[in-house]
């Protein structure tokens, strides 16, 4: 198709602090796994866990 745009899917990871509930969206990196515990939350002393991993379509 001449006029169709190429769609790129980018994987994102959503981190959620188990204490304050703050959400952080970042690009997926190898090794990310759902529900796995990550580093300390930026705004409190709680631990962030990976809440969601999903893909979003970008048109280029």
């Amino acid at each position: 198709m001449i006029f169709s745009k190429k769609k790129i899917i980018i994987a994102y990871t959503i981190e959620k602090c188990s204490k304050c509930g703050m959400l952080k969206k970042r690009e997926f990196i190898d090794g990310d796994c759902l529900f796995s515990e990550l580093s300390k939350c930026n705004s409190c002393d709680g631990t962030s866990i990976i809440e969601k991993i999903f893909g979003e379509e970008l048109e280029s």
Partner: protein
Amino acid sequence: MELTNIDFDQLFGMSDDSNPLMMLIWILPIILFVFYGQRIQLYVTSGEIKKALKKLDGYKVDSRSELIIYLKKNLKLDDDPTEKIDKFLEYFTIMPVDMDPNGIVDKVRHTVRMREDYTREHIKLLSPQINDLELTKVQTLLEIASSLQMIYKIVNHMFLTAKKQNNYPLILPLQMLLPFIMEQAEAMSKSVPAFKTGQPIGDGIGPMVVGKIMLDCEKETIAFQTILAKTDFDGRKLFLIKAEGPGSTVGRPAEALETIVSNSKIDAIIMVDAALKMEGEESASVACGFGAAIGGIGTERFQIEEIATQKNIPIFSIVVKQSVKEAITLMTKQIAEKSNDVTSQIYEMIKENTKQGQSIVIIGVGNTSGVPQ
């Protein structure tokens, strides 16, 4: 009726400005299409199918090379796996005879499991130190490459047969089915990166919801690649089942259910799965219903229905609608965002359909790639 005095000028509406050349221009294409119409259609359709075949060939070659690259990069192999992989890709499965359908489900299950066990053992032979997570990934990638090879072979066979026989009607079923075949093949081809990197796929919404509920519970292996966790909710006992993540597997939920039912009295079964949406339906919409929501070749569904019927247990289902492509590629944002909604629907369903003191089995059905518990 008088046939000798027909006025052709009037008949063809050419009156005074008509000439024999104009007549030929009208009549020649009609003759051409009457005698050669099918052949012309065959050439036109052949062009479309050739383009599709080229795409299918691309999918087939890409999935094979991605598998080989993955093996070389992630497993410590002593030899080049290319020859062995090519041999694997040629393996076929002969389904049992269905002339006498009595007992065919057991035979189908046996044949499919035999193939799965064989593949698993031979991947282990390729790399004896392979862990279970990598093993399930390689097994899935192998299945994808093998399915794409089979699709290419079948489409190519149907196309070449029709061309060889110069038979247009023979190519019609292929032309009609091709868009659906291409949709499936494209989805399979695009699912490879998600399985390689261990990302959750759309079909994993069931295991994702149940896996989240069982996060803080004690877990045990109840069947091959299947996990059970027990918890309480509003005075009810919940038995949570899902495939063992984060490997790429669907587990054996029917076997798990059989074990639970043989040890405890179960009052309801709730199944959470991804379901194919109909055209026009919104993607990631959630629907509730009755009956066993589980795909695959049908052996698991048969066994679950059999247990439920024997013990008179009602089966409720919650499905998240999605397309073929969404089901086997990286989970979309819309589907991922429905997980909390599905969880609250499970609790609502429990309250509406069961009483305090009763026991409920909740099964998260689907491929648990990238979804631990």
